[in-house]
């Protein structure tokens, strides 16, 4: 990424805040999930948009709770975090850092379009102002903005099948997503690779208007967790920093919990023991 996130004059921690933009937190808080065993592919009759939407819905899920290990590699440092996440639809999410010790308890709440951080060290909650929505979330390659975007892919993009066949021994669809005329999205093109057999996403590549690759999200290590097939490793890599990446590894996952929207409140955010 060229320019960093915006902080007022001076001290803009370059690499730290440089981030690939626009990935959804969904890749973080809501994993693709599919009841297994699945019926064999019957999607052939469906159009590409419907298929992408189906994958997209899988990626969004209903309610979930999980344990995640995040590893961030940048030019200047490398760090690992463990965190617990809760999600309900696309409107609500709560993330609580468990380790490292220094940041244990640090939490982020997404409620609608707002993002709040809870800082246990000082026992305060802070709402992230609009001007910092573009800044990196916890030093990762996700931005705060990534956490709040909740439009469905097919609302914003037109979908075409660019490739339909076998690659590396797996039958895949490669979708070409181009933004609809007035969609408020920054990408000019997304290429999306999905396995035909189980609709598991493989990777998504994000391009700007010069058709330069800006970043890549890769899904892998498909396993059954909480009774569903999920890609348990999600990696995001900015194209202009080949040595930087953020990897999200799912350790535990449960689905269809009895979560209420009221759970995603500032009060829950502040309570230390959940």
């Amino acid at each position: 990424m060229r320019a960093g996130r915006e902080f007022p004059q001076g001290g803009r921690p370059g690499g730290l805040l440089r981030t690939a933009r626009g990935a959804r937190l969904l890749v973080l808080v809501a994993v693709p999930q599919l009841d297994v065993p699945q019926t064999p592919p019957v999607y052939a009759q469906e159009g590409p948009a419907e298929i992408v939407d189906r994958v997209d819905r899988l990626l969004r899920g209903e309610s979930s709770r999980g344990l995640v290990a995040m590893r961030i590699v940048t030019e200047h440092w490398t760090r690992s975090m463990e965190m617990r996440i809760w999600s309900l639809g696309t409107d609500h999410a709560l993330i609580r850092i468990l380790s490292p010790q220094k940041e244990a308890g640090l939490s982020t709440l997404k409620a609608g379009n707002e993002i709040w951080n809870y800082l246990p060290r000082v026992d305060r909650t802070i709402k992230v102002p609009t001007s910092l929505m573009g800044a990196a979330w916890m030093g990762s390659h996700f931005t705060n903005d990534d956490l709040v975007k909740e439009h469905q892919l097919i609302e914003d993009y037109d979908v075409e099948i660019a490739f339909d066949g076998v690659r590396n021994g797996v039958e895949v669809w490669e979708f070409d997503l181009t933004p609809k005329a007035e969609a408020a999205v920054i990408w000019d093109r997304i290429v999306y690779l999905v396995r035909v057999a189980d609709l598991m996403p493989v990777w998504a590549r994000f391009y700007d208007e010069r058709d330069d690759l800006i970043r890549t999200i890769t899904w892998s290590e498909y396993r059954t967790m909480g009774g569903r097939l999920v890609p348990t490793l999600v990696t995001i890599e900015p194209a202009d920093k080949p040595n930087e990446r953020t990897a999200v590894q799912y350790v535990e996952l449960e689905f269809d919990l009895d979560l209420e929207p009221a759970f995603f409140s500032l009060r829950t955010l502040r309570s230390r023991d959940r």
Partner: protein
Amino acid sequence: MSSRFPILARLAVRNLRKSLRRSLLTGAAMVVGVGLLAMSRAFAEGGHEDWIESGVRIGTGHIALQAPRFYARRTIEHRLGPDEVRAVLAALRDPTLADDALEVAVRLELQGLASSAAAAVPVMVNGVEPDVERRFAELDTALEQGRYLEPGDRLHAYIGVKLAERLDLELGSRLVLTAQDASGEIAAQLVRVAGIFRTGLPEMDERFVQVPLETAREWVGTQGAATSVAVLLHSSHRVRGVQRALLERLASHRDQIRVLTWQEAMPALEAAVKMDDFGDYVFHVVTLVIVALAIVNTILMSVLHRTREFGVVRALGLTPGDTGTQVMIEGLVLSAVSGVIGIIVGFAVTWLFWRDGLDFSGMMGDGIRGAGVMLKPVFYPQFTPRVLLQSFTFVFAVGVLASLYPAYRATKIEIADAMKFEE
């Protein structure tokens, strides 16, 4: 003394003609002084009007109508609703005001975030009416690439060159604007870069985006609303009058609409212009003193030379007041004649050589930032009645001041002493 005035005047004029060379030299000092003054007033007037105009055009106009707390808060919560906007526009259409108002621009100003695939930068987004704004803010003159917004544009944006660099944008690029909408939610809007401008002002080139007004209204869900209605007047001297008139006409909306003058909205600009004015006045007073001294010198000499003559006329029945008046008239006539010539010469030279502007671009480049305004490197003189009046006041002041002492001396001449006086 008044009965003798014509005679005294004739005596005075005759005297000036008698010592023509001296009168001419003194007059020349006056011509140069007043000429320079006229010239500098014309340029100062032009320069300041220009400075103020650039400031108000790019800023809030000579007069800005806003919701009471918008000036301090700058958020969309403090906006003029459709009713207020209508009331303001109706008031401005009033025949008594329509003559003063040159342009009326309805604007929706939003603090937001501009994002591209490359980065995200906080910006100030202005929803504007392209055809009005082309004549108002004149940002189209700073165009570097592409084109300015046009009526009928929808998803078009006019952005600064530094913003384009930071977001890595070109003409036609996607740009996503995010801001808080009327209900407090964050709303995003896609626009495409139609044109890129360069003003030389960092805060504009880095932080300013213009989009069509209707696009902005739709985006944040405020149909018919505005954060300010900016009014550009024909002359900055009419600001107070128009403010009063607007306050009167909008009395029923007193709690919803605030009428700000440019001085209130842009205090730094006012300070800079005042400071510059102050420097000019100091210079003028000094010029006045120097020219006055030259004239005092001439008249006083001529009085002392004519001690004997004055003695004689006094002996013939003129009062001290009469002789004083005669000297006073001499001074005033000399000042007036040379002063008027000076004014004419000053304006004529200015008009002949610099009516198309005095160009400093060799020295100043594209201009210089002053009080948040880009000062153009070309200065245009202005010949307003005010400038003329100031120049005449100056001439009159010099004449009176320079004649007072010699006239006083003339009244003090004793007949007896004067007769003894050897030339």
